């Protein structure tokens, strides 16, 4: 299978990028929408890309229904936080008369810390397996398998929620100390309330 990658933030900056975006969406068989969760939704630039695609595809086209859309949303919080964003992608597919082939929800993505999945083999083996299952299903013309959805939504580090909260806060405060040391900000500054203090 051939694939193309478009980073929407740079594509939307110029007319040639917009033309390429629309053309590639138009000609593909499977459209993957991959994004970090922003306030329970898609980031604004992906919304803008989808609006652009819709704007340039007014009218009916009988082959549109053959195009599949798969959404992969990731969040620093638990996987379930991505649910509404996946539904938004499904709405887009329906409005465009595309086939929504399913969504994958990845949680605790901050654990990846910018690393490739293969660099964190042990922690991400379920995620990698889910993606392989999805690609295999796509090759057969099928929707995202339920097994793939289950695997990718499992926590990368199993444990109770309170442990995530403690580890998460410890990591956040560590980040703050690192940056505050660099920037000379008092570590108590992290509790600052710029307004109504």
């Amino acid at each position, binding site marked *: 299978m051939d694939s193309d990658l478009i980073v929407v*933030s740079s594509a939307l900056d110029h007319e040639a990028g917009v033309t390429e975006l629309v053309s590639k969406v138009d000609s593909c068989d499977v459209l993957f929408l991959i994004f*970090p969760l*922003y*306030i*329970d*939704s*898609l*980031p*604004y*630039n992906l*919304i*803008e890309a*989808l*609006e652009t695609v819709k704007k340039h595809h007014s009218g009916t086209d009988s082959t549109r229904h053959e195009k599949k859309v798969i959404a992969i949303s990731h969040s620093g*919080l*638990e996987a*379930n*936080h991505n*649910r*509404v964003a996946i*539904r*938004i*992608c499904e*709405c*887009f597919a*329906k*409005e465009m008369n595309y086939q929504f082939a399913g969504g994958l929800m990845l949680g605790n993505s901050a654990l990846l810390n910018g690393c490739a999945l293969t660099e964190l083999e042990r922690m991400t083996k379920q995620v990698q397996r889910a993606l392989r299952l999805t690609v295999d299903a796509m090759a057969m013309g099928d929707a995202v398998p339920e097994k793939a959805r289950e695997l990718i939504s499992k926590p990368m580090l199993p444990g109770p*929620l*309170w442990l*995530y*909260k403690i580890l*998460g*806060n410890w990591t*956040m*405060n560590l*980040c*703050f100390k690192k*940056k*505050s040391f660099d*920037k000379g*900000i008092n570590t108590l*500054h*992290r*509790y*600052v*309330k*710029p*307004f*109504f203090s």
Partner: protein
Amino acid sequence: MKILILDGTEGTDEYTKTVNQTLNKTFKKNSSTVTNILFHEHKIHDCIGDFGCFFKTPGKCIFKDMAQEVPEHYIGSNLVVLITVLTFGGYSSLFARAFNRIAIQLISHLFMQAEGEIHRRKRYDQEYPSLLAIGIEETINQESRSVFKALVQRNAIHLFAPEHQCLFLTKDTKASDPTGIENQIEHVLSDLGGKHATTP
């Protein structure tokens, strides 16, 4: 009562202008103080996801524009009204561009556990305002509305809104004139626990 209106519509459409004007008029009838922010009148920087609002300048985005100023109005309000063109069941890109940056300044970098989920803590001790989200649509789309309601419900949780409501305003219905819009607004405000109703 203090009301903040965050209008993320394009500003070129007569209907959306009417919605904004009617909202302002409806609230001012009851001597509410209204801050009306029209996103299309401002140049808004993108969120670059650097977490500067957590670590570098806590509670304030590093970019000095309208989105950096709105949080102060937000926390000082009793009710925040969000206006957006309903887009695939969610916010439009114009609305989301500003809202992405506004919302994150209202929450802490630290986590809490609530109702079986992990969330960010609130940054301020004050009670956060209730939310009224207005989705404007060309024609009625029930699926889109269902997704929007779910989105606003999730936002209300993350933004500690004591109450939230959605209102859908459809261009092609009989209730698309100012009186019709006003009636729908009054009705939904009375649903918001009566606290924000404009009829004394």
